[in-house]
C-alpha cells in the first residue's frame, strides 16, 4: 500500500455497517422531501441554490433545508445535498460560506465530484460527510481506495459498474458503496458529456444539461444515410433503470445505499417508488430465506414509470433493447389526483387536497406507506362546507369523499390517465 501525501484530514476509524442498506431518495423540493421520508426513505438528497446539477429544479433555500432536516429527523432520516458540479474558477468564491451554511442547516452529507468542493468541505465544514458523486465515474477498486484514503466514507459508483465489479470493489475496500438502483440514466459516462455545451451553449457539468442524448439523429457513413425512410432514427437515449427484481442480489453484493434517481420527478413518482423499495427491503430482512418478489411491487413501479425499464449495466452491457428508438410517450399511466389530509372514522369521509382533476364516477386508487392499497369509485363528494360536488376542478381545493377503507394523512389518491 502506498502512502498518500495530503493536507486534508483523513476519515478516522472504521464505519459501522448499516444493519440494512440505506434507501436514498431524491427530493426536488420540501414537499417531495416530506413524502419521500414518510414513504420510507432512510435519507434524501436535495439541491441547494448553488453548486448542484439541476439548475432548473426549484432547489432548496437554507430555511427550507432546516425544515427538511427537522422533518426527516422525526423519522430518523438524513438529508444530503448534491454539490456535484465541476466548478469553474468563478464558482470558487462563496464555496466556503455555502458549505458552512449546509453544515449549520444540519445537512448530513454532500455529494461532490470536484476536488475543489471535496477539499473545501473537509477543511471548513468537517461535520459534513463527503460522498463521492457518480460524476467521477468510479469503476475500479483502486480508485475507490484512493478516495477512501482521501477521507471519504462513501463512493457513489459509476452507473457502468456490474454486480461483478461491485463485488470486486467490496472485496478490496472497506468503504460504503452507493449505487443507483432506479431511475433515468445518463447514457454517457457521467461528467463525460458536453453535448449541451456544443448544441446550446449550456454547460452540462454545471447543471445546464438539455438532454440532447434523447434527441433523434440521422446517422451517415460518408454521405450515405444509414437508415431507410421508415426506420427509427439514431439516439443515445437509454431506458430507465429498475432493479426491483434483483433486490436480494443488491443486498448480498453489499451495496450500502440504494439510490433512486429523480430530483425533477413528481411527488407521486417519488412516493410510489420509495414505497415499493421500502416494502421490498423490509420484507427481505424479515425473512431472507423466503423472500419473494411480489407482482404488485412491479405493478406499482409501472404505474409511476415514465419510460420503459431495464437493468442498466448490472448484469450485462446494454444492447439494442436497452435504448429507446421509438417516439417516447412521456406520461406515466397513472397520476396523482389528491393527498389525504384528514380522515373521519365516524363518517368514513376523507378530506383530500386536490392535485389533479377527478370526478364522481371515476375509478381511483388509494396508496399509503406500509402497503396500504385499495381501489374504489368516487361516489359521494362534497366541498369542505359539505356542498355536493360532481368534479374536483380547483388545484389544492379541499374535497371530502367517502372512502371504502380508512386512510391516513399523506396517503395518495391516484387516477388512471386517459379516458377509461
Amino acid at each position, binding site marked *: 500500500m502506498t502512502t498518500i501525501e495530503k493536507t486534508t484530514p483523513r476519515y478516522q476509524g472504521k464505519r459501522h455497517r448499516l444493519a440494512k442498506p440505506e434507501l436514498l431518495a431524491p427530493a426536488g423540493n420540501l414537499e417531495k422531501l416530506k413524502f419521500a421520508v414518510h414513504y420510507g426513505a432512510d435519507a434524501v438528497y436535495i439541491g441547494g441554490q448553488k453548486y448542484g446539477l439541476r439548475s432548473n429544479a426549484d432547489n432548496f433555500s437554507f430555511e427550507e433545508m432546516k425544515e427538511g432536516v427537522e422533518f426527516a429527523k422525526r423519522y430518523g432520516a438524513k438529508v444530503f445535498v448534491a454539490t456535484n458540479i465541476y466548478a469553474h474558477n468563478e464558482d470558487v468564491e462563496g464555496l466556503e460560506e455555502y458549505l458552512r451554511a449546509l453544515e449549520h442547516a444540519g445537512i448530513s452529507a454532500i455529494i461532490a465530484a470536484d476536488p475543489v468542493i471535496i477539499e473545501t468541505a473537509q477543511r471548513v465544514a468537517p461535520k459534513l460527510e463527503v460522498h463521492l458523486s457518480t460524476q467521477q465515474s468510479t469503476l475500479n477498486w483502486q480508485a475507490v481506495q484512493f478516495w477512501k484514503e482521501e477521507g471519504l466514507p462513501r463512493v457513489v459508483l459509476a452507473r457502468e459498474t456490474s454486480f461483478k465489479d461491485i463485488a470486486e470493489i467490496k472485496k478490496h475496500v472497506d468503504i460504503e458503496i452507493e449505487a443507483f438502483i432506479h431511475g433515468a440514466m445518463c*447514457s454517457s459516462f457521467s461528467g463525460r*458529456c458536453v453535448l449541451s455545451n456544443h448544441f446550446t451553449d449550456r454547460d452540462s457539468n454545471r447543471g445546464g444539461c438539455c438532454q440532447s442524448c434523447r434527441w433523434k439523429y440521422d446517422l451517415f457513413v460518408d454521405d450515405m444515410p444509414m437508415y431507410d425512410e421508415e426506420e427509427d432514427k439514431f439516439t443515445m437515449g437509454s431506458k430507465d433503470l429498475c432493479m426491483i427484481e434483483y433486490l436480494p442480489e443488491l443486498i448480498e453484493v453489499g451495496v450500502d445505499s440504494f439510490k433512486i434517481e429523480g430530483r425533477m420527478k413528481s411527488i407521486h413518482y417519488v412516493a410510489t417508488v420509495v414505497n415499493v423499495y421500502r416494502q421490498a427491503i423490509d420484507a427481505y430482512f424479515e425473512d431472507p430465506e423466503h423472500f419473494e418478489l411480489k407482482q404488485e411491487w412491479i405493478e406499482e413501479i409501472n404505474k409511476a414509470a415514465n419510460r420503459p425499464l431495464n437493468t442498466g449495466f448490472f448484469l450485462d452491457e446494454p444492447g439494442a433493447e436497452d435504448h429507446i428508438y421509438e417516439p417516447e410517450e412521456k406520461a406515466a399511466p397513472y397520476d396523482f389526483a389528491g393527498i389525504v389530509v384528514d380522515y373521519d372514522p365516524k363518517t368514513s369521509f376523507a378530506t383530500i387536497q386536490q392535485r389533479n382533476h377527478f370526478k364522481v364516477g371515476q375509478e381511483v386508487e388509494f396508496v399509503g406507506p406500509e402497503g396500504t392499497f385499495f381501489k374504489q369509485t368516487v361516489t359521494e363528494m362534497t366541498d369542505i362546507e359539505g356542498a355536493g360536488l360532481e368534479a374536483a376542478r380547483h388545484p389544492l381545493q379541499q374535497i371530502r369523499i367517502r372512502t371504502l377503507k380508512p386512510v391516513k394523512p399523506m396517503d395518495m389518491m391516484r387516477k388512471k390517465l386517459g379516458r377509461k
Partner: protein
Amino acid sequence: MAYKPELLATAASLEELRRLIAAGADAFVIGEARYGTRLAGEFTLEMIAEAVKIARPHGVRVYAALNNLMDNEAAESLNTYVSTLADVGVDAFVFGDPAVLMAARSHAPGIALHWNAEMTSTNYVTANYWGRRGATRYVLARELNMEQVIDTAAASDLEVQVQVHGMTNIYHSKRSLVGSYLDHQTEPERLPQKDKDRGLYVMEAERQDERYPIYEDINGTHIMSSDDICMVENIHELLEAGVSSLKIEGIMKSMDYNETVVRSYRQAIDSYLSDPEAYAFNEEWLEAIQQIQDPNRELSYGFFYKEQVY
C-alpha cells in the same frame, strides 16, 4: 528560466511521429486503447519503446496515454504496465483515473504525471489538488473560455496544457450505441465496421450544417465535435498567459494535415518567442491550414471566446 512552451502532438504511427518531429513537434501523446482514450493510433509497448528511441535524440518527449476510466481488470494490470513504460523511458503518464496515480506511486515513482480528465478539469483549485497528490501538469477542459484559461494558468502551481487545434470529444459512452442502433434496424448487417476510420457521423435535425463524427472502439462510443479548434491566429494570447503546453489533436486527420498544422504553429510560436514585443501574426500560417481543411468542418475558436450558461 526562459519560457519555453511545448508544442504537443499526437501520432497514429511511427512514420507520423518522425514527420511531425521534423515539422516541429516538441512532444507526443501515444499509447494503446486498453489504457488510453481516443488515441490517434495504436502503439504497442514495443512501438512506444521505438518512439522513445526516435524522439530522444531530437530532445522530443513521449507521454504515455493512460487516461481511460479503468475497470477493475485494466486497473489490476496497471502496476506492470506503468513499470514497463518507465523502463521504456517515457517522460510522463497522462491519466484521468486515480487508479493510475496509485499504480504510478508504487511502481513508477519519478515519472511525471499529467492529470487529464478532459471535460472535468475546470478550475485552478482542483489543479493544485492534483498537484499536491503528485501531478505535474493539469490539462484544461476544452469548454473553458480564454479568461478562465488565463486565470487558471496564473493561479495553478502546475504546468497547464491547452488544446489549440483539432477536434474534441463531446460525448463518451461505455455502450455500443452504433452497434445497438444497427441491431435495432431491419438490416443490421449493413455496416460491418464502426471504427474511427469509417467516416461515420451523426446529424441533428436543426443543425444540418454540423457533422458530428461518431465511432466505436473497445472503450465504447465516442462522438466528436463538428468543428476543429484553430487558435493559430491568437496563439500569442496563450503564450502571454504562460501556458506550458499547446496541443494539436491529430485524431481522425491525415498525416499531411497534421504536418501542415504542426508547421504553422511551430512558426507562430518561434516567431513569438524570438521577439514577443514585435510579434505579428502571419496570414500564411492560417492559409496553409485552410487549404488542407475539410470543407465540411469549420475552423473555430472552440469555447475560447464564448459565454456559456447553465
